[in-house]
């Protein structure tokens, strides 16, 4: 047998710009690797079978459900999580990403459990589109429709998407 068949692997994932190494069982989900092995608990785990969207992260530029990717599959990939959204300012403080800022302004979160998934889904979606094009309601629905929120409701989340899109357009 020339092809290695393993039960455990050492992997390197670049998380929010920082290469991180971990030795994981091959059955480890990316969501669990981020939380348990790398200590990044900002990524939340809800349904664990791809329905709720709470664990959404950005892998090589595309939003994906981290519970539907094995950690070993992300070996060599660049992963962005909610911890990487805010930027440091010159004074050593943090500046929220426009999507985070819009969520705060619009009261688009209540308990906050689903929020990291929404933030990553929306950020990837807005960054992938032409910021000067008008953002339609259908586009917003398509963007957030795969993430479940059970307390805030979607009215404020949709408003936050519009506000964030406007902020990203004006800032670009």
């Amino acid at each position, binding site marked *: 047998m020339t*092809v*290695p*068949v393993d039960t455990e692997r050492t992997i390197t994932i670049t998380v929010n710009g920082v290469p991180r190494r971990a030795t994981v069982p091959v059955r480890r*989900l990316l969501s669990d690797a981020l939380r348990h092995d790398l200590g990044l608990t900002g990524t939340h785990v809800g349904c664990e*079978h791809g329905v709720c969207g709470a664990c959404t992260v950005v892998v090589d530029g595309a939003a994906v*459900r981290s519970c*539907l990717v*094995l950690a070993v599959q992300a070996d060599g990939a660049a992963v962005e999580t909610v911890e990487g959204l805010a930027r440091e300012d010159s004074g050593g403080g943090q500046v929220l990403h426009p999507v985070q800022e819009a969520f705060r302004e619009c009261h688009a979160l209540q308990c906050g459990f689903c929020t990291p998934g929404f933030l990553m889904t929306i950020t990837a979606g807005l960054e992938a589109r032409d910021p000067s094009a008008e953002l339609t309601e259908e586009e917003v629905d398509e963007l957030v429709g795969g993430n479940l929120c059970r307390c805030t409701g979607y009215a404020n989340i949709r408003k936050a998407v519009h506000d964030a899109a406007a902020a990203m357009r004006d800032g670009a």
Partner: protein
Amino acid sequence: MKPAPFRYADPRSLAEALEVLATEEGAKVLAGGQSLLPLLSMRLAAPATLVDINRVPGLDRIEATGDGVRVGALVRHVRLLEDVVAARVQPLLARATANVAHPAIRNRGTTVGSIAHADPSGEMTSVLALTGGSVEVATPAGVATVGWEDLFVGPLETSLHGPAVVTAASFPALPDRSGTAFAEIARRKGDYAVCGAGVVVTLDADRRVERVRAAYVSVGLVPAVHDLTDAVAGQPVEKADWAAAGALARTLVDPDGDLHASADYRRLLVGVLTERTLARAAAEAAERTGA
């Protein structure tokens, strides 16, 4: 829950993939994983070994010619959805793919994987059937083409056994003077369809209905193509009785009931969606036929 323990290989060529599949007992191919990983996490499946083909080169191409569209095993739904050339050759592809799950799942899930998964609630299995498509299957003995009629055996079950990798799916082009449409009813857009319908309408040179076919999603155990021509044959496209075609469709299907919809409700939806999609497909066919 978490997946049961398994062994894992990520071969770098098709030959290596087939080698592991042949050597490892109870091995299963992993592509996009958007259907397989939920099954593992819910412990509905527990393969001994996963053979991840994501690092096999050459499987990520879409080839669209006048004859049809060939989709490689690692083409993600999102790429097929956005491929304008493929959409021109066979418009059903993008129309159906727009109904496949949510964007974050379309970013990773593959068209070919969803066909090999053979879920009766999958869109692309029905599209493969409706277009008269086939898949390419690599085995240690070589590559074979398997038509859709010979592929689907039951829910989540195909006719493929032993070491095999489905390397591509081919969808023939939309015929001349034809139009298509696809629509779905789901509890939340992007969720599994309660019922979905894809249709193809073909006109004759005098703009009369020549042929009408439909395939459904979440209706029946395996994909099936229903010929609805008899209900509207020879009718001028502008005056065709699409409601009659919908009524005929309701007599042809045999849906099951579940938590989300009774069998009767599904049959009702088959009629409604058939009528709606046929009107749209006919308009497109008329446009493509000319005056």
